[in-house]
């Protein structure tokens, strides 16, 4: 089948017998070991959703501890057993939950779930290809991701617990099983899961890049690509260049943990064990390696959301995206700068102050392309004719959150302020708003927008509206007050604040935040119900182009088979943003340029 799909990819004449191989599809080849990019996208999406629910649930559990540190919940003990003795989460369990929440949300949900889903789904459909450059590699990418998921999940069930040293896994804590029980078997499994994950994202990323560069349909020049594709392209480039660095860092960590090397270890005396023989290593080296991935990673998470938001905003404003080339340039600038700012996570590690100052400069420089993007989105709305589909609402929500969270980045990027705010709740508020919730909004926007293409049915609109407004209000209610906690210096990753004279005044606020977070989580369940119900029972799509959009995916049949277009792949004659041009509401990309048409 892979051969066939590849053949079709190069086949611009089409086949009248195109659908014939679908007769050979068994359940296994169609749903499980599928090489159809659309099915792989759905696999990524649903696995990502499972992780989002688990990761969200974890946050509800540790918010329970933060909000009600003195209360006892007997039902917790019946679920978590020894991790919640007497109905109270133990510090071990709390840190395991926090760590797994971070790892899972950053990598499994917002990397695999977001770019895995939409890069797979949209790249062939929007560039006009029958499938990915290598459908087989694409399938492998999903299966490595699933393997990573299984290993990560299994780490929850080992005797000493899952890794509990924070998602950044700084050694020596992550290297020494004697320093924390979570750093025993749990950490080995964490590293294996991450290594598998890196393989998955490299297989995916190479495929995305190859497909975008080589498999565009006739007429689809690079500057006619929709911004979604550009964003996914830069995302893939970032991933391919930075994930190997994480892998190398983790391999050194494996050596330090198991084979007695001293890459990261030096001068260590562990309570109850004594002095270790390791000398000469640098714990800071790991942080450099980690953040060399870690910072591009936040753009790996953010860029696909930006791309989809640009697309959805333009469609639903019935206007071209304002400043296509500037949007493209700013994407490029953000992607390039992503590699030059990693040490802003390390201002207080004893970094050379001069080096620190360079990173301040480069970090704040990112605000310029970010500002361009925001103003261009605003101008796209200006004098539009806006349709508030749920996808559009989430796109607008994304911009609002991106502004709020982006501006606090200017605080934290300035080393002289970071020296006060570093590792406080201010940071939590900042990155949850700008990266976590904003990208999640981008993902929701994408799901609402492309659900009709995925399943041939609509999601329920009313549920979508409830989902958006509650989540939007909830996101601000949860994270906005956290800035104040950060301004009081309240540190992250604290199990309990009651012994701290400086931070205990926020007990009431913590309770409030915890309550809101549970409501917001409940509303996400509503979304899940909507999602799975609508796959089978949702309102059917009756037209090929329900949003009246220009891009190529809407020229395929309502339920496209493997190969996407039954006939020839359409030829592209224009960019993707001819909305409202010459009095016409929209002109799809495959419509030839008329003789009397004005240029934009």
């Amino acid at each position, binding site marked *: 089948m892979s051969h066939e799909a590849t053949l079709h990819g190069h086949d611009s004449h089409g086949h009248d017998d195109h659908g014939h191989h679908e007769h050979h599809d068994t359940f296994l080849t169609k749903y499980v070991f599928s090489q159809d990019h659309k099915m792989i996208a759905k696999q990524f999406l649903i696995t990502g959703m499972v992780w989002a629910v688990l990761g969200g649930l974890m946050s509800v559990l540790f918010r329970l501890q933060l909000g009600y540190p003195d209360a006892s919940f007997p039902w917790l003990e019946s679920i978590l057993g020894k991790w919640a003795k007497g109905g109270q989460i133990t*510090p071990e369990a709390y*840190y395991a939950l926090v760590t797994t929440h971070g790892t899972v949300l950053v990598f499994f949900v917002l990397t695999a779930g977001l770019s895995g889903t939409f890069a797979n789904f949209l790249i062939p459909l929007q560039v006009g290809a029958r499938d990915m450059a290598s459908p087989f590699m694409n399938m492998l990418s999903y299966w490595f991701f699933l393997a990573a998921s299984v290993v990560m999940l299994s780490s929850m069930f080992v005797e000493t617990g899952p890794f509990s040293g924070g998602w950044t896994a*700084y050694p020596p*804590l992550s290297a020494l099983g004697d320093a924390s029980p979570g750093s025993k078997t749990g950490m080995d499994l964490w590293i294996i899961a991450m290594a598998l994950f890196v393989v998955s994202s490299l297989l995916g990323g190479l495929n995305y890049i190859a497909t975008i560069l080589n498999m565009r349909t006739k007429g689809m020049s690079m500057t006619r690509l929709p911004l979604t594709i550009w964003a996914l392209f830069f995302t893939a480039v970032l991933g391919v260049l930075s994930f190997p660095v994480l892998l190398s860092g983790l391999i050194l960590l494996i050596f330090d943990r198991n084979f007695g090397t001293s890459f990261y270890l030096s001068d*260590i*005396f562990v*309570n109850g064990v004594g*002095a270790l023989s390791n000398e000469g290593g*640098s*714990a800071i080296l790991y942080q450099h390696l980690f953040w060399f991935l870690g910072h591009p990673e936040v753009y790996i998470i953010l860029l696909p959301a930006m791309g989809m938001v640009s697309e959805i905003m333009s469609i639903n404003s019935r206007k*071209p995206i*304002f*400043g296509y080339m500037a949007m493209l340039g700013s994407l490029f600038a953000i992607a390039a700068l992503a590699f030059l700012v990693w040490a802003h996570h390390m201002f*207080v590690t*004893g970094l050379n102050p001069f080096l*620190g*100052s360079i990173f*301040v400069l480069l970090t*704040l*420089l990112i605000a*310029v392309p970010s*500002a361009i993007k925001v*103003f261009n989105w605003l101008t796209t709305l200006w*004098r*539009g*004719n*806006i349709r*508030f589909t749920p996808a559009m*609402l989430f796109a607008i929500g994304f911009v609002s959150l991106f*502004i709020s969270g982006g501006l606090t980045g200017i*605080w934290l990027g300035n*080393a*002289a*302020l970071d020296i*006060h705010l570093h*590792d406080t709740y201010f940071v939590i508020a900042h990155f949850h708003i700008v990266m976590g919730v904003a990208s999640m909004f981008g993902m929701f926007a994408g799901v609402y927008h492309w659900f009709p293409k995925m399943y041939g049915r609509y999601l*329920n*609109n*009313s549920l979508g*509206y409830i989902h958006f407004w509650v989540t939007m*209000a909830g996101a601000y209610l949860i994270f906005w*007050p956290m800035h*104040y906690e950060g*301004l*009081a*210096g*309240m*540190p992250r*990753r*604290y*199990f*309990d604040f009651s*012994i*701290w*004279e*400086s931070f205990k005044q926020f007990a009431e606020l913590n309770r409030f935040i915890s309550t809101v977070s549970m409501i917001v989580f409940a509303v996400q*369940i509503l979304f899940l119900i909507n999602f799975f119900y609508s796959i089978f029972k949702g309102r059917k799509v009756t037209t090929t182009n329900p949003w009246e959009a220009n891009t190529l995916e809407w020229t395929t049949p309502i339920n496209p088979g493997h190969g996407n277009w039954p006939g020839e792949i359409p030829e592209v004659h224009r960019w993707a943003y001819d*909305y409202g041009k*010459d*009095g016409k509401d929209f002109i799809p990309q495959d419509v030839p340029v008329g003789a009397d048409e004005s240029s934009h």
Partner: protein
Amino acid sequence: MSLYLSIAIIVLIFVVIFQIAKASEYVSILKGEEASRKQNNKINGFLMIVFLVLGFVGVYVCNEYLYDKTLLPQGAASVQGEKVDQMLWITLIITGIVFVITQVLLFWFAYKYQESDNRKAFFFAHSTKLELIWTAIPAITLTVLVIFGLRNWFFFTGEPPKNAMVVEVTGKQFGWIFRYPGHDNIFGKKYYKNIDPATNSVGIIWDDKYAQDDILTEQTMYVVKGQPVKLIIGSRDVVHDVGLSHFRLKMDAVPGIPTTMWFTPKYTTKEMKEKTGNPNFAYEISCDQMCGNGHYSMKGIIEVVDQEEYDLWLAKQKPQYFTAFPEKDPTAAPVVTDSTATAKK
């Protein structure tokens, strides 16, 4: 029982919401797609303005409730901290202005330009002039912030004044150890393999002639008001962080790689108790870098006192050497061995 009840109620609410949503979908099919889209547009457009207004009300209310709970009203307790606060205000004003303008435009545009039969979307693909404007303005503003920030950054990370007292801070799971150099003002050398939790918690090399008057204390550090203090920070096991929120500073404690930080405390602990009206006020050292399961309890205290009180306190401290070797009691002649110590100042 109440658990099952609340689960039942939540499920019931979900069912009700879901049924209403289903029903509204049928209604919209009956009314026609066009009509229901218009209605949805009206509702959501209105909600955009509601959200904007309620949002700003929320920001105000939040500030009313929480401002007093931050450290800003009591002010910074160090010279450095005052500079941090000053920068914080400048940054707040600049980002605040941008925040208000962009959020208002976003929600206002969304409301104002909601779909209407009387309007055609304006085909406006790009404008180099506009784009240059909003490239230049942020660039200039950020330059100002960078200049301000770096001036402070180099002050914070620069050399402390000559009269600074020096204290060595060592983090361990889960507490802090402080070492004072003693009368000679020079720390004795140390090596981590000499660590003995009971008598030599930082691994001092006793043969070093500068080592024998070194003073070790745990959990509480004494410093003098108005005198710059330089911390030499290290860790015994994993990465910790000396977080001094009242002084607005922090620095990681990394095993094997010493870091430094200095500050000038402005108020004694006693003065801060009066200033904040809180008799329990303490300058707490919080560990700000995830260091294990006891991370949240890794607290230290800084007592800022005046010179007189400090001298009294110091006079009462016994060099650690005599704890390690009680047989060499203070009245006997001190054993001085010749060694090649390097001076640390």
